């Protein structure tokens, strides 16, 4: 039997547990225990997260609140499914703010900051080249 596979079975969350603000255990179950699959989307977040935050900012800057709302909604869904509870919560607040036509600056900055931290953390823990 392959040694890496053996390790993965005995301790499937190796590395993932080091991620703060991510419910790795629950989310790994969501991926049916397929750690490689989960890691792939976490690493993908390193580029996707900042890009999504940037798109939301641009939409708000352009006055396209409807587009910004849809983007924030999608981002909320994605972070929720990846187990990023803090980011999910911030995205939800931003979406609500947009829907209620309230000032978004505070939540947008919070989102960008948290996304940047999460991306760096993932990159540090898992490495950008770690994919399926």
């Amino acid at each position: 039997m392959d040694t890496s596979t053996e390790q993965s079975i005995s301790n499937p969350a190796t590395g993932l547990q080091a991620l703060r603000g991510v419910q790795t255990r629950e989310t790994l179950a969501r991926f049916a225990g397929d750690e490689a699959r989960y890691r792939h989307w976490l690493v993908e977040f390193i580029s996707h997260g900042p890009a999504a935050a940037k798109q939301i900012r641009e939409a708000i800057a352009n006055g396209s609140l409807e587009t910004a709302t849809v983007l924030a909604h999608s981002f909320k869904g994605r972070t929720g499914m990846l187990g990023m509870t803090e980011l999910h919560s911030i995205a939800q607040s931003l979406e609500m703010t947009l829907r209620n036509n309230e000032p978004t600056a505070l939540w947008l900055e919070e989102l960008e900051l948290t996304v940047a931290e999460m991306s760096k953390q993932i990159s540090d823990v898992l490495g950008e080249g770690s994919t399926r």
Partner: protein
Amino acid sequence: MSSSFKVFVVDDDPVILDIMRAILEPDCTIQTFFSSEDCQARLADEKPDLFLLDINLPGMDGYSLCRQIKDDGNLCNIPVIFVSSNDTIEERIRGYDAGGEDFIVKPFEPEELLRKVMVAQNMLLQQRSLRTQAEDAEMLSSLVMASMDETGILLQFMSKLIAMESTDDVAEGLLDLMGRYRLDGVVQTRLGNATQTRSAAGRNLPLEVAVIEHVRDQGRIFEFSRRSVHNFDRVTLMVNNLPLSDPDYCGRLRDHLSVAAQGVDSRLKALQVDEANRRAQSGIQAALESVGDTIMELSDANRSNSEASTMLVNDLQETLLNSFYRLGLTDNQEQFLQDMVGDFMTRMAALLNHGIETQQTLERLNTRLGELRSF
């Protein structure tokens, strides 16, 4: 869950689609789409057993796709589960209004998704089972209706059969019954020495007679090729065009025609008995008339004899009295002869009176015979 259970998942987020695959693929067949339009394009060729729809989609949203699914007669029975991060009562109501069966909120737990998919699968199985049961019930109902109709035709024939007074009527009735069952065939009736073979083509056609004569001794029910023969003592019924493609209908026809042929046989037997009775009554009538005629002849002869005897006695008395003057007899001799003749005449008169009584007896007998003949 069965891997043949096919699920179409529509979501614009590849992470969600990947998670859906990870959870469901071991148990279901999954097809994923990034938009409603992609899904619609596939629906032209393939139908799933369940839809999992995101609501916020690029282009057509999940509600609109759901409405289109529910408006499509070919898809409307397929359950739809919305999968959305819009966890508000308004969103859920919109989902139900669009025709969705259930709602899952992102982020969801794998167990929740699996259970809801399982419930949808059970619902689908129950629907299919009910549909099958409904189809079976409908088929059974059609069969019963058809059978009742066929039985009705038979009952109508049997009720008419009782009133049929000739072999012609019976044969025609039987051919008519076969026609109502969409059958073509031949009927042969045998009553006493009279045998007749009838079909729609005519009466006593040589070929048909030859075939019937060949099959009439082949047992009560005899089948060959598309033909079916029902043999009874006084009737043979042969069907030429059994609908072999419908074995159930063939079976029912076999029963109906057997009952009909048996009924005809009984009716022909009754007609035979009636005919024998008619002949016996006719013979008795003729005999009674003959006896009556003989009595009248006897009566006439008796009357003639009585009249002739009376005349002869009167002549004898007159001749005797006239002879007394020519013979010159003494008073005593005349008295002796007169007494002797008188005595014989008295006895003769008694005999003549007895003849009158005989005449009266004969007349009464004739009157009684007349009454019997009139019955």
